[in-house]
């Protein structure tokens, strides 16, 4: 078993809007190991979300190679027709807003994907309750998302991203809607999950305060992706 969780080689992404071609990344390459919590930073519009969506098999790259774990999923084209199956089995998504399904209860939101993957109702519910306990909102299991606060919903959304026991978690500004104290605790929680479950986590953030909690920083710069360690050069990286 290799340590590799995500590997991207020579990734190119261009959007064509009519005549105009907008280039997001050109020949970008990077690797993320299991158990790593990586921060993805770049100015707004630089392509952070686009990059996450390519890794998440949602947005089709223009060219390049993507590995998830040891499986090559993209090589100038999707190597499987079932990108959605990869998503629900291997990946957990967390967004800036919670994006829970409003007509399902908290518990149902969490068990939806595991049950689609064939996990038994008992097991999926047991694990969902365990996650809710962990996030301290077990008493809200049967509430609708509209009855919860923003912070509570965000915790439910994180629980949902964990419910299918993913190998990779892609988090797009998960703390943007939270106060700084909550943000720190959410990122600490993600770090703990990364370590305990051996999950690779890519987290987009604009919040500098979160960076010291991460293992590494990926930066989109001149359409390339630059990796930097946190210790020592943190300040430099952020300028």
């Amino acid at each position, binding site marked *: 078993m290799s340590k590799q969780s995500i590997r991207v080689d020579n990734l190119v992404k261009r959007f064509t809007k009519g005549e105009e071609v907008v280039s997001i990344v050109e020949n970008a390459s990077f690797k993320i190991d299991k158990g790593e919590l990586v921060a993805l930073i770049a100015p707004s519009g630089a392509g952070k979300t686009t990059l996450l969506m390519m890794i998440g098999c949602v*947005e089709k790259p223009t060219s390049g190679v993507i590995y998830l774990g040891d499986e090559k999923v993209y090589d100038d084209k999707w190597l499987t027709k079932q990108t959605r199956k990869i998503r629900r089995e291997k990946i957990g998504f967390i967004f800036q807003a919670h994006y829970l399904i409003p007509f399902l209860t908290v518990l149902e939101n969490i068990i939806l994907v595991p049950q689609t993957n064939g996990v038994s109702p008992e097991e999926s519910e047991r694990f969902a309750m365990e996650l809710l306990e962990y996030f301290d909102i077990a008493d809200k299991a049967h509430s*609708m998302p509209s009855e919860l606060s923003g912070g509570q919903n965000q915790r439910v959304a994180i629980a949902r991203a964990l419910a299918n026991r993913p190998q990779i978690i892609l988090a797009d500004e998960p703390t943007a809607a939270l106060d700084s104290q909550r943000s720190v605790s959410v990122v600490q929680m993600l770090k703990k999950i990364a370590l305990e479950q051996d999950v690779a986590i890519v987290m987009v953030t604009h919040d500098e305060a979160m960076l010291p909690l991460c293992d590494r920083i990926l930066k989109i710069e001149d359409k390339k992706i630059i990796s930097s360690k946190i210790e020592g050069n943190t300040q430099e990286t952020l300028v």
Partner: protein
Amino acid sequence: MINLAQKDISHSLGKFLVTAMGVGLLLGIVIVMIGIYRGMIVESEILINDINADLWIVQESTLGPFAEASRIHEDLKDSVRVIDGIKNAEALTFQNIQLPSPLKPTRVVAVGFDPHGTFNPINPERIVEGRDLQRSHYEIVISDNVGFSLGDSILLGRDNYRVVGITHGSVSSGGDPLVYISLKDAQELQFLYTNNRIRNDRDRGIKNNDAHMVNAIVARIHEGYSVDNIAKELRRFKHKSVFTQAQQHDILSKNLIEKSSKQIGMFAVILIIVSTIIISLIIYTMTLEKMKEIAIMKLIGIPNSMIIKMVVQETLLLGLLAFSFGAIFANLSYDKFPKKVVLEIPDSIALFVVILIASVLASFIGVKKVVSADPTTAIGG
């Protein structure tokens, strides 16, 4: 497994039910209209079934006496009676008259028959009060919905008639109430003019000898004879048309019912199409309102089949609920319609199947929307 349709509907139950009720009213009207059609068929056959003849002899080249006017000499019945195989034959008259009813003037069809003859068009089961005609003059048996009571006196033409019997459920092929009078009275009403008119006609050299006309001769045959053979033999008489009971049924359904049934069928089809469009629009807007959730579900890996199942199930449930509301509406209101409404289970089952198929069709644009939803739009904004 979580049933998305059920969860979504219970989330917006009120709107769903109100829509189902609205469409249900339309479907209720469809059910009632089919019932009116059934009622017309039932009513069209009441009179000829009550008369229960084997053969109908009417005026040459007419489809009488119901679909077309027919006049024929009364004494033809004597020539018919002597034909081999004929058991009995009688003359009958049918005419529209306006009765000065106590409620409001009512159009009725008067059936004239010989009370001492061998054919009685009054089905004894229909008499709810009083009795049959017994005398050859000035008695009338009348349908209960006209509003007369036993013993009332009604002025028809120049004479007063006494109500001796009340029937229930006796209607003409066109749905008008029936009254029964003696053949002689009927002939007088139908064929005799006022004294002034007779005098005037006489002055013009017109001789009025119509009084012994009738509208049809009906006959029954002995057992063991073939209706068709006797009909063939009767047709050799000049100046008349001959129909068997079965042919008379056909004439009624073709000429009297067919047009109305086409009309009713057209309306029913239009209403079903309108209902289908409403259902599909509702499902479409319900799907549009969920586009964000659908994009999220696709993004986190929920397969299309599950989301499509949700839309189709919602549509089917809407159709089913609407049909149920329609059936309830029809069953609560059918006896309040002026026309006879006959609700039959097979018709409802057929409509139910049509609605299910229409619902599946109605879900198409919603499903199309689901399939085309882009998961990347989920996180935009």
